[in-house]
């Protein structure tokens, strides 16, 4: 049997207009535009078999979303080929669109001004879902995502996480055979994330659907995927089991330190200093996982520590370090 998703030499190059600031550049740009070519995806190959759940990882701008957009038919590639369920996605055949789903961002399927319930009924008609099947699917989705209290409110009045739940549910009403999920748990709290994961695993088991998902949360990927595809700078860097990957990537931990006094102590002798833009109060050092206990106890002994945290580094950073060579 041929693979459910087959990608061959898939490439996408964007032409981006480019000009310098200033008046004369603006005038010149009016007559002759300069374009810069951005190679978002370059000659990517992979095959995904029916029923697989594959994690699609890479730093921001790596080409993940571009690839998902091509596979769901939104973008025409510059070169190469892809086939999903035997269809060429960008031909946008209704039969193809009825058998897949793309969940991307939080403003997608639901109409902003009306309650989600109305959008759901519209989906039922658009995807030609028979009444009994619709009721059954809705019941399952409601059990897992607790949709009922959200259905009657206009979508604009829902919180980020509530909206995401409704978006995912709307994207699954027609029981797609292939799911492209771009950050499906973004904006959800921990229990929400766990619920969505649980649901996706259950859905995959029950229907044999094929799932390709991107995520910022390593937990999503480790919980769901046995196989990982990594792209970086538009190129395929890794395609294989998640356990092999962790061997390949030297396991690091991130230690965040807040000192009781001014931050005048030099922490670089304990490990590599790293920037963390979200947290200015703490200084962060990166150390090998096996050294964490040793370094932490040294820190606590040497310095006036006010607060200390130990965490996994963000998934992008790990990939950046492993594949940037």
């Amino acid at each position, binding site marked *: 049997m041929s693979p459910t998703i087959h990608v061959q030499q898939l490439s996408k190059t*964007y032409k981006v207009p480019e000009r310098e600031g200033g008046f004369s550049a603006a005038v010149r740009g009016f007559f002759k535009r300069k374009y810069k070519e951005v190679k978002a995806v370059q000659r990517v190959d992979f095959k995904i078999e029916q029923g697989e759940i594959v994690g699609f990882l890479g730093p921001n701008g790596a080409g993940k979303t571009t690839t998902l*957009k091509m596979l*769901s*038919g*939104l*973008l*025409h590639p510059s070169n190469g080929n892809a086939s999903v369920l035997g269809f060429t996605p*960008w031909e*946008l055949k*209704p*039969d193809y*669109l*009825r058998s*897949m*789903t*793309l969940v*991307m*961002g939080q*403003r*997608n*399927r639901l*109409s902003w*001004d*009306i309650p989600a319930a*109305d*959008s759901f*009924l*519209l989906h*039922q*008609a*658009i*995807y030609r879902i028979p009444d009994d099947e619709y009721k059954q699917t809705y019941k399952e989705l409601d059990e897992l995502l607790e949709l009922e209290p959200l259905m009657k409110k206009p979508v604009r009045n829902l919180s980020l996480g509530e909206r995401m739940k409704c978006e995912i549910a709307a994207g699954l009403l027609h029981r797609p055979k292939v799911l492209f999920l771009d950050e499906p748990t973004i904006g959800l709290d921990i229990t929400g994330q766990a619920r969505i994961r649980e649901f996706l695993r259950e859905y995959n088991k029950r229907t044999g659907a094929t799932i390709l998902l991107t995520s910022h949360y390593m937990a999503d990927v480790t919980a769901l995927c046995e196989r990982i595809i990594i792209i970086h700078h538009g190129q395929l860097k890794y395609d294989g089991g998640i356990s092999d990957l962790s061997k390949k990537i030297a396991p690091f931990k991130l230690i965040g330190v807040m000192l009781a006094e001014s931050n005048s102590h030099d922490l670089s002798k304990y490990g590599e200093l790293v920037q963390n833009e979200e947290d200015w109060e703490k200084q962060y050092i990166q150390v090998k996982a096996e050294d964490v206990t040793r370094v932490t106890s040294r820190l606590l002994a040497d310095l006036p520590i006010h607060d200390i945290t130990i965490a996994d580094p963000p998934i992008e950073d790990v990939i950046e370090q492993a594949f940037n060579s």
Partner: protein
Amino acid sequence: MFLIFKRLWQVNWAEQWQYRANLLMYLLYWLVSPIIYLAVWTSIAGVKGEVNGFTANDFVTYYMVLLICDQITSNIIIHTFAYKIQDGSLSGELVKPIHPMLTNALVNNIAFKMLTIMGLIPIWIILFFLFKPDFSGVTLSGVLLSIPAMVLGFVIGYLLSAAITSLAFWTTRVYSIHEFYFAIILLFSGQFVPLPLMPKVIQDIAQFLPFQLFMYYPIQLILGRLSAEQIIQGYIMAGVWLVISILFFNWVWREGVKRFSAVGA
């Protein structure tokens, strides 16, 4: 398919109701220019007695019918759709197995028109008593003949506007292109001036363009001012332009979607 349109209607109707105040503002804005043309031409004809055979009351009658025809045949797709191409929010609609422009946007336009027409009716009645148009030429057969003509006018106008809106796949300046297109409609549809008052050249050109189907042709049908031959000629033109606009829209849309870059979301 029927169920899809029924549900689309429910959603879009509910949506438009949310914006009813906005809609009323739009209606008032939209009423300004035909009423100005009406006032200007009536006063010119009032001073001179007539303009090229058009008396003041002829102008009143013409523009009172124009208010209805324009409302039925016009569309607002440029305002409800172009931005979706530009900001990438079209993505969510493009992955659904229905044509975004020929289903959702179409129903949205019709829902919008239904509401504005409901708003127009009382205003029109007030204007009727204010200006006292002469509807003595109006016959049932004329009105009945004008209905398919207005439907055709709407469909052709919608497809042409949809094609122009689709130029947003190529350029971010699609609104200025649409403004230019709008100026052409103003000139050749009989909105700015009833066509018989235009220079002969423009009248000759206008006969072969689709724009008179939006206003001048249905107005004359309602007022019973066309010969059998002219009526047939108008319907033939409508048929020809229907085919042209379908082909044109299909081509622009197909080529445009290839260029869609699905930015943002």
